[in-house]
């Protein structure tokens, strides 16, 4: 009898905890998803303003502009279409024209992205997955590989 009541309260506590955790997970998971989009998706499918996205590709050549304060504006391209991005902060070390980049942020009404985080490659062999995929979708595997191993952007 004692052993059975012990099992009963153990199951009750575990069940309550799992239910609580499930509520937490479902409440916060949906609100914190970032949808991965290529520049081509962004332009062709007109993603609604306010959507949280991750856009990958290369930083467009001659597209980087410094704005007010430390604001940075640039374009992400997959070779076919461009998306404008603005970011208030210091970009990562390997942020440069022609380099792979992923911008995470919110879509603005004009279709540009206000980034809250930038992820760049972190060494000569690596390119963020979304950037690589976007280039592959637009220009094929070879173009993506060529961009991945290109060191021109960093070796100024």
């Amino acid at each position: 009898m004692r052993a059975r009541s012990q099992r009963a309260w153990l199951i009750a506590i575990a069940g309550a905890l799992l239910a609580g955790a499930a509520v937490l997970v479902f409440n916060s998971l949906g609100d914190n998803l970032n949808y991965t989009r290529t520049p081509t998706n962004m332009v062709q499918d007109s993603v609604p303003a306010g959507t949280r996205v991750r856009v990958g590709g290369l930083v467009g050549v001659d597209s980087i502009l410094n704005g007010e304060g430390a604001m940075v504006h640039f374009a992400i391209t997959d070779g076919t279409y461009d998306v404008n991005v603005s970011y208030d902060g210091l970009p990562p070390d390997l942020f440069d024209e022609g380099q792979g980049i992923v911008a995470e942020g919110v879509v603005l009404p004009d279709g540009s992205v206000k980034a809250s985080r930038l992820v760049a490659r972190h060494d000569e062999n690596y390119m963020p997955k979304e950037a690589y995929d976007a280039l592959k979708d637009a220009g094929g595997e070879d173009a993506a590989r060529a961009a991945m191993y290109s060191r021109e952007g960093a070796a100024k």
Partner: protein
Amino acid sequence: MIAELGHLLTVLAFGLTLLAAYHGFSGRDELAARAMGLSAVAAIFGLVALVMAFIRSDFSVELVARHSHSLKPFFYKIAGAWGNHEGSMLLWCVIMLGYGAIAGAVMAPGRLKARALGVQGALAALSLAYLLFASSPFTRLADPPLDGNGLNPLLQDPALAFHPPFLYLGYVGFSFVFSIAAAGLIEGQVGREWARRVRPWALFAWSALTIGISLGAIWAYYELGWGGWWFWDPVENASFMPWLVGAALVHSLIVTQKRGSMAAWTVLLAVLTFCLSILGAFLVRSGVLTSVHAFALDPERGALLLAGLVIVGVFALGLYAWRAPKLEAGPVFDPISREGALILNNLFLSVAAATVLVGTLYPLVVEAVSGEKISVGSPYFDMTLAPLMAILFLAPPAAQSFAWRKADLTPVLKRLIIAGALAIAAAGATFILLAGKLWAVLGVAIGVWLIAGTITDLLRRIGGGGVARAFALSASIWGMTIAHIGLGVFVIGASVEVNGRVERTFALMPGETAELDNWTFTFNGVQSDEGPNYFSQVADITAVKGRREMQLAPQKRFYPAAGMPTTEVAIRKSLTGDLYVALGDEVRGRPGAWTLRVSFNPMIDWVFGGAGLIALGGFMAFASKRLRQRVEVDDPITVEPDLVAEPAE
């Protein structure tokens, strides 16, 4: 020659692990131990050979050519040997065999030892096969370059040189916990004595993992230049999941050792922890998830690691399903008891690990099901873990003085009135200092509650005995006390740092000033400089707050060998926190103007200090003499709260 020698030694180690596995599974513990020891020696010399190739800058070895450079500082030539995929896999194998060899030397003879060494031998054989056939560090180049690519400059850092060894002492240390767990299941010996024998391995591995993760966080804090120390990146989650389940394991082992209860659950945690370590290796090395600091994309290696995970997982869970139902349940206990509290700890830690797992793997599941590519933002992890941990951390001060089987709550709570009052006072003070930051207020209250409550429990144990009694307390009691105080320190630091951090980014011309949080920063310009293997741009910044004035010199470096720029932040420490300045780039179209990121990170040292105390506590419990004493079959099951004094030897 040296690369071929290294390769040969690794092949030899592989053969010897097969021999160890064979002898182990046949029940010959002495022979298995000897084979394991020799295999470890061979693998260690294999690693030495690789390090020698790095020291000599032998660029005919592909790995050296890709990751080293003749002008690299000597220390980083050595550390560079494991700062890459292949070298770190060799380190993984060496540490796995090292644990096996030490176990072969120190474990009491018998069938449990034989089986454990057998399983460890099989795990090591899998790892070495993966190393030799899919990621050999000893491959030669037909056409060696004149100089190497250089180690990724971000990795040329003392914290990161020691990060992999400690991380693997933890990650891979759980392989031996796995091996004894599997051996216990095979032998039907999962019980009190088994738990006593697993505990030191689990404590050591978990403490080392704590240090490894902390070193990674410290590195991220000052090297990446973003000012944060934890980003919920998949790679971080990969190390955090085994840490959470390992934390549950070191607690549930106590119940199984002292009371004989929860044996089935404990052994499940013991095998799952190492499965999560392999899952981590898969996530980090396969490139399936976007991460700021992953290894290069390589789906083929990923597939092999996934296959390894499936083999190990199916073996362990199959064994578990077959044997666990036969394990004894142990004596019954009340919800309010030491056992009840430790079960609550385990439920919370496992559920926390599960929520991290959901957030980490959800993108893979969604992509597999719908093709939609998503990622989970870091607020998800904060929002799910913070409430779970906030509730869990209320328990330790009370639970530490619970009796086994059935505890009386009233006297325990009465003793904790002062600790509760201190927590409320600290919450009030935080509310005034950091108005409106509710999570900081809650965090400080919980942290103070943990520290004051743990000290209250320590004083109860010392009683009127004074210093002599304090020194007579067992090392495991001191370990628990220090670890729980460390947890309190960490919680205070983390909640104040994350919620109280202020930061701004500026673009300044020389002579211009900017303000942040009563500090005034004057930018005096940038000068060029040169290091052993890099060029740098050094900014000169004067920071003034009241009568305090300081000079900061953040740098931007360029490493020509790797073709990579890095940020070297300037940090000024004070009792209340760090002033942190990172130099960005020269502003396009405004020559002479540079971007700067300035932040004040309050109580950041409490974050790392708290983590260090947690690891220290774990190591102290590991060193406890009590763990070295056999539990006999007819030993009475512990009923009283822990004995105060170390039993006489």
